[in-house]
């Protein structure tokens, strides 16, 4: 198995065997985080720049930890304290940083397509850490990894993705990822928050919560994205809560060994009942744990490709 591209921009571009390759590699890297000394010298002398144009807790710290565990030198640019606030364009920012010879960029940006744009500007590897409402490939890989750890064969699963799908880059990546591995994907959301033109094999739109959840092996709940003006797409939060919240009662209709995932941050008691989280019925922390391993694998695979080119 191998992966012959310098960048990881979208799951849409990955094949099923690419996805498996990333996850198999991540499983190896996961063991490093369980050791006494959580560090290997593999990326010694490599420089990785993290640029987050949007706020992030999990993804950003996960990438930083991944870089440190692989001994890369990493630098995180906080947009609020950078020249972006003085009006510097994305292109100029990247070209200036490129002159400092980094080996990889990790980019989060509010514009869809930003990571693809940056990948054309630089010889360094680019990892998309979320671009607008387009994709969030490492989140998809860690979701699949979390599912594979428990369910082995993704191909036979029913996966329900529920919530603000239209604005969710996680949903888009997960839809591609799970459907490429052969899972049956059910989407459910208010009509105004369903994406247009989903014509993928294995992807269906459910008519109500029951249909989406019934017999599901995996339920991925999504957040209403305040920052992307989701509130204009629904009558009110109360209404959303009434019709789209995952409650313990709905959860009981799913498969017995259902896994509940959420990419975070969670709006408790909006998209998911707080009692489901408090009761330890979600895999949220497993997802976060696997996130570090997936990001280590991505850095290792992409920087390895550059070196061997």
């Amino acid at each position, binding site marked *: 198995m191998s992966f012959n591209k310098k960048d990881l921009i979208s799951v849409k571009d990955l094949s099923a065997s690419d996805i498996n390759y990333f996850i*198999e*590699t991540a499983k190896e890297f996961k063991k*490093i985080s369980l050791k*006494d000394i959580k560090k*290997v*010298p*593999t990326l010694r002398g490599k420089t990785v720049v993290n640029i987050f144009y949007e706020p992030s807790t999990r993804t950003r710290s996960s990438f930083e930890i991944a870089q440190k565990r692989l001994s890369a030198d990493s630098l995180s640019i906080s947009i609020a304290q950078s020249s972006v606030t003085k009006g510097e364009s994305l292109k100029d920012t990247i070209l200036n940083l490129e002159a400092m010879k980094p080996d990889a960029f990790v980019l989060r940006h509010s514009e869809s397509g930003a990571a693809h744009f940056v990948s054309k500007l630089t010889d360094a590897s680019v990892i998309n850490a979320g671009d607008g409402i387009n994709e969030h490939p490492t989140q998809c890989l860690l979701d699949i990894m979390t599912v594979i750890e428990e369910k082995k064969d993704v191909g036979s699963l029913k996966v329900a993705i529920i919530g603000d799908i239209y604005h969710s880059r996680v949903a888009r990546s997960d839809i591609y990822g799970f459907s490429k591995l052969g899972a049956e994907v059910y989407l459910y959301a208010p009509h105004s928050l369903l994406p247009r033109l989903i014509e993928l094999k294995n992807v269906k739109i459910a008519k109500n919560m029951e249909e989406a959840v019934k017999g599901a092996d995996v339920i991925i709940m999504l957040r209403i994205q305040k920052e992307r003006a989701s509130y204009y797409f629904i009558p009110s939060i109360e209404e959303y809560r009434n019709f789209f919240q995952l409650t313990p009662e709905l959860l009981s209709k799913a498969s017995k060994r259902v896994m509940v995932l959420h990419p975070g941050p969670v709006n408790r008691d909006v998209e998911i009942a707080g009692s489901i989280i408090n009761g330890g019925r979600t895999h949220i922390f497993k997802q976060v744990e696997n996130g570090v391993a997936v990001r280590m694998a991505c850095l290792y695979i992409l920087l*390895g490709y550059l070196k*061997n080119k």
Partner: protein
Amino acid sequence: MKKEIIFDDKETGLILDNFIKDILNSKINFNNAAIIGIKSGGVPLAGLIRKAVSERFNIDCKIGYVDMTLYRDDPFSVKKSGDATELAFDINDKEIILIDDVINSGRTVRASIDEIFDFGRPEKIKLAVFIDKGGRELPICPDFTGKKIRAGKKEIINVDVLSKKKFVEKYEL
């Protein structure tokens, strides 16, 4: 790719017997020893040595494996094998017998020792290699050697000690 048998079943068996005997007769305290095979060539040898220790002394040594890919000085020159280091025991203050099938430059051993130290601080590490093909690039010397041979850098030595017909062969890439 022309393969040439260097040692046939009988010769390989003899080298193996002497190699294991040397380790068993050494001053290693097997009560406190752990056997670590370097993946992938050291794995079968590690198993054989553990079995021999168990038969002779009735001691079940801890056994583990290292995959040193991430500790290489050229980490990307091989594709990740999907193998993993398995050291499921406390290595602190243990006497480690580190085993590989072939030693050449010594870089694999260097990387393996580095990795082992990330798991703790062993009391000692003894190195046992089945075939020493020379060509050292680092100051590393095995404590136990099955057989020394002469082979070029590009010549690959393949050791099979598990099949019904054991052999050591060489071929050029």
